[in-house]
């Protein structure tokens, strides 16, 4: 059942209101941060308040306005949207606390700008999550790109600006050309951009058109960081760590894969894609990215860059799951949106905490850091294990469903890919853990390497412990996300869940 | 053939004049000569208009009891307007040329181009 409700709009709007209030109270940092926290909490509550309805199998929708005939800005919260919305809005609360700790410890400049655009970015993320048609998605996709540009280039050093420019070139360039072309083509052929379980194309669309449109979509959504359009993600690592954490583990990249999943499941429909054989194509494309990105991650010494390449690889899991076009595959894909978000944000939080506490950025410098920052590194370790898929951590759940999906789809080579990538994950994550806990710290000339605990500010450590707990909890109680994921599958034609 | 060349001589004349004017606009570096070219170009069109208003055996379009046919006066009226326009254009062009002479010191196009390429300290 479809319920008209303004809650989606309010949930999106609340951080926009914050984005207005934040600059107004720029002279009073505490008040300013209050707005951020307040907005984050309200946003999460609003999103969460929709969960019961969604779990009941209903959707909440609201049509905001029509730009021109056929071009409407409308929202609909279904199970898929709710998964992403819950993840993003919950993690915003955590990140807000973490951010406050980070920028104050680092004494960053232009903090007002930072928090303002952060709030805008979150609105855009939820907007993309809740959109009812591809146009709305596109609109918020672009807003997200533009609003995160000042965050990526925040440091305003030459390097930061270059990184930010690369970021924008990739994201804006691909979306304004390929994605726009895909949109126009789809609208021209289908006459609508409305998401639906059956897809927009009726049966009478030529295979060529579907293929071209699909390829354009995949190329257009560079936020999903599929190779070779992944280059912006490592470049964007020049951003302050909380930005990398939320935006490049959750908001931006997840918007990317979310859009891909949307396109696969609700715009084209699995029927059309499997008929055109495009699912398999995407599976191979994603597999390629998974393996190659992991190989590159092995060679990165910069911690954040290694995490970035890990993200590139993990994002393709989500794409892969959807591309399998089987119930379990899609379930795994949807679950992985949430589970990877919790894991990866913990890792980034850890990297940021290490940076704040010791100003170290390289993996090779991390010898013995586990003894000095036990909480941070403990959480970090949990997250790495989840990434690899070790029980009892959440990573296993989504991987399990992915494997099942691959079996359902009868594409055995995918199992090989998943296996290899698990080994590679272990290959690039475990050395960090090993160094942190089992290698003795090298004494630097300054002799500042004293023993004892020397953690990052408490706000940051708390945040990352919270997300690490999430990683554990999601293994034991993935129910809400699992239920939602099942709903996504259940709504599909012929899908029993 | 005769019909094509002699019978339509007015068109040949206007086309020839037009091309002469056009040539001057393109080939002459002197700004005033260019304007003269433009004028010839426009005048050619005026001639064309006037010639299409002529009716065989017609007289001036003034009421006259012995007239059998009258020439068509409309093209004349139109071209009167066009002439005024042309005069205004020429006036504006001359005003511009005078100012160009004042500020560049020359009205030769190639010299002006050289001046623009090497910006010297101009009085403004």
């Amino acid at each position, binding site marked *: 059942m479809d319920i008209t409700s303004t809650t989606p709009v309010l949930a999106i709007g609340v951080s926009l209101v914050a984005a207005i209030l934040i600059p107004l109270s720029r002279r009073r940092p505490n008040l300013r941060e209050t707005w951020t926290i307040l907005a984050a909490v309200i946003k999460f509550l609003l999103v969460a308040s929709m969960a019961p309805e969604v779990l009941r199998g209903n959707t909440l929708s609201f049509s905001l306005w029509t730009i021109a005939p056929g071009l409407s800005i409308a929202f609909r919260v279904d199970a898929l949207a709710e998964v992403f919305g819950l993840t993003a809005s919950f993690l915003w609360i955590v990140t807000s606390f973490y951010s406050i700790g980070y920028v104050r410890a680092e004494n960053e400049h232009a903090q007002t700008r930072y928090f303002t655009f952060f709030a805008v970015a979150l609105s855009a993320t939820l907007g993309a999550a809740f959109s009812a048609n591809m146009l709305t998605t596109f609109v918020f996709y672009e807003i997200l790109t533009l609003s995160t540009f000042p965050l990526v280039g925040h440091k305003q050093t030459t390097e930061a600006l270059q990184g930010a420019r690369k970021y924008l070139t990739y994201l804006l360039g691909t979306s304004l050309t390929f994605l726009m072309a895909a949109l126009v083509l789809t609208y021209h052929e289908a006459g609508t951009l409305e998401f639906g379980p059956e897809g927009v194309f009726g049966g009478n669309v030529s295979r060529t058109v579907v293929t071209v449109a699909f390829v354009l979509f995949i190329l257009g959504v560079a936020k999903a960081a599929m190779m070779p359009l992944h280059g912006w993600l490592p470049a964007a690592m020049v951003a302050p760590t909380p930005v990398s954490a939320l935006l490049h583990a959750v908001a931006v990249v997840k918007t990317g894969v979310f859009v891909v999943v949307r396109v696969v499941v609700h715009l084209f429909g699995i029927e059309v894609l499997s008929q055109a054989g495009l699912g398999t194509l995407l599976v191979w494309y994603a597999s390629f990215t998974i393996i190659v990105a992991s190989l590159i991650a092995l060679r990165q010494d910069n911690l954040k860059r290694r995490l970035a390449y890990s993200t590139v690889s993990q994002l393709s899991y989500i794409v892969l799951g959807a591309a399998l076009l089987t119930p379990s595959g899609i379930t795994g894909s949807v679950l992985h949106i949430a589970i990877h978000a919790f894991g990866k944000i913990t890792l980034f939080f850890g990297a940021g905490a290490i940076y704040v506490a010791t100003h170290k950025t390289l993996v090779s410098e991390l010898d013995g850091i586990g003894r000095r920052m036990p909480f941070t590194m403990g959480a970090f370790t949990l997250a790495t294990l989840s990434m690899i898929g070790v029980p009892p951590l959440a990573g296993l759940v989504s991987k399990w469903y992915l494997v099942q999906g691959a079996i359902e789809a009868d594409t055995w080579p995918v199992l090989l890919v998943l296996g290899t990538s698990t080994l590679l994950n272990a290959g690039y994550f475990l050395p960090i853990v090993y160094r942190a806990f089992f290698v003795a710290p090298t004494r630097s000339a300054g002799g500042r390497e004293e023993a004892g605990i020397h953690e990052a500010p408490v706000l940051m450590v708390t945040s990352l412990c919270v997300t690490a707990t999430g990683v554990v909890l999601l293994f034991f109680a993935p129910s809400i996300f699992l239920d939602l994921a099942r709903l996504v599958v259940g709504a599909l034609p012929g899908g029993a869940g | 053939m005769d019909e094509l060349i002699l019978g339509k001589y007015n068109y040949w004349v206007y086309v020839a004049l037009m091309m002469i004017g056009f040539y001057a606009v393109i080939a002459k570096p002197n700004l005033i000569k260019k304007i003269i070219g433009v004028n010839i170009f426009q005048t050619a069109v005026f001639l064309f208009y006037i010639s299409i208003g002529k009716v065989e055996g017609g007289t001036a379009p*003034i009421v006259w009891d012995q007239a059998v046919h009258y020439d068509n006066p409309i093209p004349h009226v139109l071209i*009167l307007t066009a002439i*005024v326009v042309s005069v205004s254009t020429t*006036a504006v062009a*001359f*005003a511009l040329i*005078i100012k160009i002479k*004042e500020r560049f010191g020359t009205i030769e196009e190639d010299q002006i181009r050289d001046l623009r390429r090497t910006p010297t300290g101009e009085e403004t």
Partner: protein
Amino acid sequence: MGENIIRRTITRLMVPFIQLFALYVIVHGDSGPGGGFQGGVILGASFILYAIVFGSEAGRRRVPAPVTDVLSSVGVLIYAGIGLLCLLLGSAFLDYRALPFKDPHLAGHYGIFGIEIGVGLTVAAVMVTIFFETAHRGEGGETRDG
């Protein structure tokens, strides 16, 4: 400028007749060849002739710059005013039949008459302005943009 006596005398004699002819052409515009344009040019030419022979300063004394400036505007305003009058009197723009004369034919007559005067004034004033503006430059004097 000793030998100029002939030019000066002849000009003095000619100018009034030229102007009279100009007025004739302007006024005659509605019933025969001629009209505001032609008459205006002739009228302007008379002042230009005067200025050529007696020097531009003497010419400007006869027709000062503000006078030509105002006249060139006023001429157009006469034209526009008559058109607007027709409009205000409930008919179309420049539909002279609406003018308050008994005979619509006569109204057309007077309407065109007024129009021709307006056109003539403007054309003459503009001609004179163009002449003086161009002539001034040659003397290297203070320039006025126009």
